[in-house]
């Protein structure tokens, strides 16, 4: 997976595009290659046992590099990373140009 910056479109980042990006990343990096588990924007990532608190660090780094941001430690909680939609909400706080 390349870490090219996420493309800015129409003056902002489109939330649906980001959702797809993160869903794809989680599927590729955190699910077994043989897994038939479905991942949606509401799938529980942390409490559902797909991403643990250790693995969260590489997901956080992925987002930071993709959007050129720094996610403060106090905001990088298991709750904030518990679903792709939760992550989108976190990104909206940190990246004002994320739009629905």
């Amino acid at each position, binding site marked *: 997976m*390349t*870490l090219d910056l996420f493309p800015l479109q129409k003056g902002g980042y489109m939330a649906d595009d980001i959702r797809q990006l993160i869903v794809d990343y989680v599927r590729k*990096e955190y699910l*077994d*290659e*043989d*897994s*038939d*588990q479905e991942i949606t924007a509401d799938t*529980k990532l*942390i*409490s*559902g*046992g*797909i*991403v*643990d*608190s*250790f*693995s969260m*660090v*590489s997901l956080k*780094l*992925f987002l930071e*590099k993709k959007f050129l941001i720094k996610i403060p430690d*106090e905001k990088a*909680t*298991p*709750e904030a990373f*518990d679903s792709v939609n939760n992550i989108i909400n976190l990104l909206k706080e940190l990246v004002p140009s994320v739009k629905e």
Partner: protein
Amino acid sequence: MSNIGSYETRHRTFSWKLAEGELEYGKSGNYNIGYFCTDRIGELGNGTRVGLIWEGFTGEVRRYTYDDLRIHSNAFAIMLRQLGLQPGDRICIFMDRIPELYISFIGILKMGGIAQPLFSAFGEEALAMRLEDAETKAILTTRKHLGKVRRTRPSLPHLTRTIVVDAGDRPLERGEIAFSMEKAQRVENIEIAKVTPETPSVLHYTSGTTGKPKGALHVHSSIIAQHITTKWVLDLQDDEIYWCTADPGWVTGTSYGIIGPWACGVTQAVLDAGFSAHKWYAFIEKHNVTVWYSAPTAIRLLMKEGLEPVGKHNLSSLRHLVSVGEPLNAEAVIWSEKAFGRPFHDSYWQTETGSIMISNYPGMKIKPGSMGKPFPGITAAVVNPKTFEPITTAGTVGLIAIKPGWPSMFRTYWNNQETYEKKFKNGWYISGDRSSVDADGYFWFVGRDDDVINTAGHLVGPFEIESALLEHPAVAESAAVGKPDPINMEVVKAFIALKPGNQKSDDLTIDIMNFIRKKLSPLAMPQEVEYVDSLPKTRSGKIMRRLLRAKEWGEEIGDVSTLEND
């Protein structure tokens, strides 16, 4: 009144015979842990008591009485026998915290096998290494982890049986067997394998500074120590609802997440979900958990979320809190008094010791930040690291040492008797942990005496990480050390020198992190990567990890006279 009553009196009057008496050990002529954890509870008239309340991450709840535990574990034992597995065979359990994990563990013991539980987040390489070393004959797993098992199988000629406990109607490959615990025939009684107190029971792998992970082998009589410590340290009483948050892939999850509580016949609650403060508090509230055994990392994660989520739940059922895995800092003890109205009691032990060695006991004064005092019947000291003689001056740091002879002491490292013997010096078992003892006899943890990384209460071997890093196409050489972390005590940091033609970049860092996570485990994944031109080495070419570690911890570097490239 607590089970232990007065620590001083217990300490003075204790004998392991007394502990055997508490369990009526030997009375029935049956020494099998599987018998004590299920059949015996029924014989005591408590077969209809709930032994397991299980909740999945979706909120689904299942309950099993001790009669159910007996019948389902019988089914596992019968199935394993029918597959031709023999007493003494190593049988791995590789699954998330589902009821089948807990119950198959008992089933394996009942048929005389050696249970080898492994953390389900292990990657292929970590899994294969442990199965290869133990020459494991069979593995019990789920569809979720079957892919990893399938990819390791070609390199494991001894692994002849793969049992999938949730296969349903899905097609399986040759050599794989579908087994549904819930649909299996209910067999009230089976002939439980005749074992002696010294028959091997459980094989848990732990990491060292050098070489591959080592399998600490335990025996059936370990239950004597696990039972009495569960009663006296965790203070489990008849009507308890007990929650141990440890995964049975690690020793706490079997000694105190299966054997101890079920030998006591209490109700155990299990939450099969990742960490979430809200979910954890809701679980305690929903099931009226009374005794909670958790880890400092989890407590610090809860602290991070603050007191607000605590206030949203009724946690008044909690009456006793205990912690294990790494030193419990004083702030966490004080915070737990604020949050739950009672302190966490720290306890200390290792995979090799099989049961709690040092602890804070109900009714005993807690000194926040201290591990407490040795369990009655345990002779523990801090010894000089060179002479291995006990240090008698209060406050002086040395190695934690324990006089051998307690029932749950490991009996060997699998296929590695030489390393086992090196753990004993001057008549003491040397733990590898450093501590001091104060004038009142309280132990104060200082750190490891070697390069092993204690992250979130789990030991991770630097050698295993460095070996895996070398398999990455961009890595020329590497060193893995522990760096301080406010939540996990330590996390893995990797120092990496790249092969010519490779440039450091964020892409590469993330790729390396994920590479190790998939190969070994999330615990072994470097949380930070630092690129260097070369690594400090001795003149004989050995990487000086202690130099890198000292830098991370802001410690004195010490003697560098053997440094090659200073």
